């Protein structure tokens, strides 16, 4: 199986789409926010690779063509943002306050938890950029002396967590404004959360896209300052 996957251009792609489709079917059947197609697809793919002893690198031979679409898709997030220009102008102050407070909350809570768990300085700076988009977070982590492969893993897990918890959490906290929902999801869980926000609604998705960019910029500026605190 490993050899076949390593030599196939389509196997990884088809397997990924198939498992996501299974996730979508389950979501439709159970109609619950906890049934998350992304998480189901990731879980099934990992289970498949482990049980057939297929290397990740062999799977990625085909699956990388799915990742190939990620940069163009990120760029296309500008479209809903442009369409929601009015909401953006009207709520500019609220949006900036929301994203800035979220970025500070992220850095501060990583600091507090690192002290509580007794993490090393290196682990602390590895975690600091955890809420922002992968490519920026990885570079910020490296610059501060963090271990970037762990930063990448933590960022992806953060995104999946946000994608998974956003609907029930925002409901419990009575956050109902679509703009506030989008800012919350994008600031906490970057593009992976935004993919879910796009599903919730166009305005929520647009605000979430905006948060990826703005929270990335704030984190690049503030993370090195926080790195000196512990």
């Amino acid at each position, binding site marked *: 199986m490993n050899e076949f996957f390593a030599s196939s251009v389509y196997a990884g792609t088809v397997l990924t789409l198939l498992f996501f489709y299974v996730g979508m079917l389950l979501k439709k059947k159970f109609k619950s926010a906890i049934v998350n197609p992304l998480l189901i697809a990731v879980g099934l793919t990992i289970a498949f690779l482990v049980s057939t002893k297929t290397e990740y690198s062999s799977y990625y031979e085909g*699956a990388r063509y799915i990742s190939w679409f990620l940069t163009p898709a990120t760029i296309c997030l500008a479209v809903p943002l442009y369409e929601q220009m009015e909401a953006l102008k009207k709520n500019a102050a609220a949006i900036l306050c929301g994203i800035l407070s979220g970025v500070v909350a992220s850095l501060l809570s990583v600091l507090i938890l690192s002290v509580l768990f007794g993490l090393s300085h290196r682990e602390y700076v590895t975690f600091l950029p955890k809420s922002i988009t992968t490519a920026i977070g990885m570079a910020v982590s490296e610059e501060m002396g963090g271990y970037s492969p762990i930063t990448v893993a933590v960022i992806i897990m953060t995104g999946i967590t946000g994608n998974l918890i956003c609907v029930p959490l925002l409901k419990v906290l009575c956050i109902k404004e679509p703009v506030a929902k989008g800012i919350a999801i994008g600031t906490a869980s970057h593009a992976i959360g935004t993919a879910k926000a796009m599903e919730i609604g166009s305005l929520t998705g647009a605000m979430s896209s905006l948060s990826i960019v703005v929270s990335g910029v704030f984190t690049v500026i503030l993370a090195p300052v926080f790195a000196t605190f512990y």
Partner: protein
Amino acid sequence: MKYLKQTGIILLLTLSGEVLHHFIPLPVPAGIYGLVFLFTLLCLKVIKLSDVKETADFLTGIMQIMFIPAAVGLIDSWDIIKPSWFSYIVMIVLVTAIVMGVSGFVTQAVIRKGGKKDE
């Protein structure tokens, strides 16, 4: 022809983003440059919404699928995470929930305060 044109424009923007990423020594990924580019060009009416709309909607609509390969890649990081996986997961879940709560709460509070002033 419509889709060919839309795809062409989006890929051209992607390429411009890659060029900037290559030459500017900042930790900004190509996708973020491209996003800012496209947004600016839409605002300046250099690119019309109809030049990208359907293809853009399709790509953003299936975006969740594009994260699966990278997320499956976590199995290769498992060995380095394993020693302290429990504290990592606790931190990830707690921080994500706190950030989501704080930024959502603050945004909503400022929106509602502004709304009252208007009345």
